[in-house]
């Protein structure tokens, strides 16, 4: 057995107490801080992704509404002898009802001369064919 003086033992004990307390304090506080801040970063990421999801869900709902407005005329609309007002009315009707799926549109005036058009009545032929 090695005998050491009481004073020396006390100094060793005191130093051990201080060093182990300070060391563990620094180690645990550092570890806790690192762990909690990493966890908080993950929480923030969850929040940001959740908000994105909420926005996307709203956007998707709006897009679904727009998609529901896409329509196709069941058969072919074809009419001769239409007045300019009727053509305009039909165009507004077709374009304001939603998004029309079509692969064929023809609107043709009976005249193509620019100067005489106000003196003569213009008649239109209009054909709109729906598509799937």
């Amino acid at each position, binding site marked *: 057995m090695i005998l050491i003086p009481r004073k020396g*033992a006390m100094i060793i*004990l*005191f130093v*051990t*107490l201080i060093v*182990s*307390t300070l*060391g*563990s*304090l620094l180690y*645990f*506080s550092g*570890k*806790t801080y690192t*762990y*909690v801040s990493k*966890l*908080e970063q*993950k*929480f*923030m990421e*969850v*929040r940001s*992704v*959740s908000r*994105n*999801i909420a926005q*996307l*869900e709203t*956007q*998707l709902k709006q*897009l*679904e509404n*727009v*998609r529901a407005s*896409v329509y196709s005329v069941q058969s072919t609309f074809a009419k001769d002898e239409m007045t*300019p007002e009727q*053509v305009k009315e039909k*165009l*507004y009707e*077709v*374009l304001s009802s939603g*998004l*029309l*799926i*079509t*692969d*064929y*549109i*023809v*609107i*043709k*005036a009976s*005249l*193509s001369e*620019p*100067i005489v*058009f106000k003196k003569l009545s*213009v008649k239109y032929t209009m054909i709109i064919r729906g*598509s799937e």
Partner: protein
Amino acid sequence: MLLVISILPSISLLSLSYFIMEQKISKLLIRYPEVFNNLTTTDLRDIDAQIDNLLSSLKAKESQLKSASEEIKNYIIEAYKNTYFLHSFLKYTSTNTNSYFLTNVIYDGQRFYVDFYEYGTETQISTSVVYNDLARFYKDVLVSLLEQRNFLGDMKYFHYIWEGRIR
């Protein structure tokens, strides 16, 4: 014996640090209800794994929603291209005071062609504005003022054609 006693504070700090960590995590959970509401257990020991699982499932949902939106958006844009040139024509011709005479519209599912005359002392259609507008949805766009002629005093007519193909 005294040596063991001297390291007791550091051992108690271990418990204290765990306690502090639990407190901090609890406070975090209060601040982030979207995380708390999605936890299956309140055991803080496996919270890390739970958050990782939650994040991966949320990201999967996010990408699923993104691709669904993208798909619908593309469908809507494709549908919009069918009649966008007519929307444009009505938009530009109904927002000014000149008169218009539409002579011909042809659309065959791929190409569109619009032929019309504008009547007024000055044209109120900017070819570059119309071009940029149509070029958003169509390629090979042509917005052309074919002819401009006086026909009654300072009254002129402007003969335009618009053409383009679906992208």
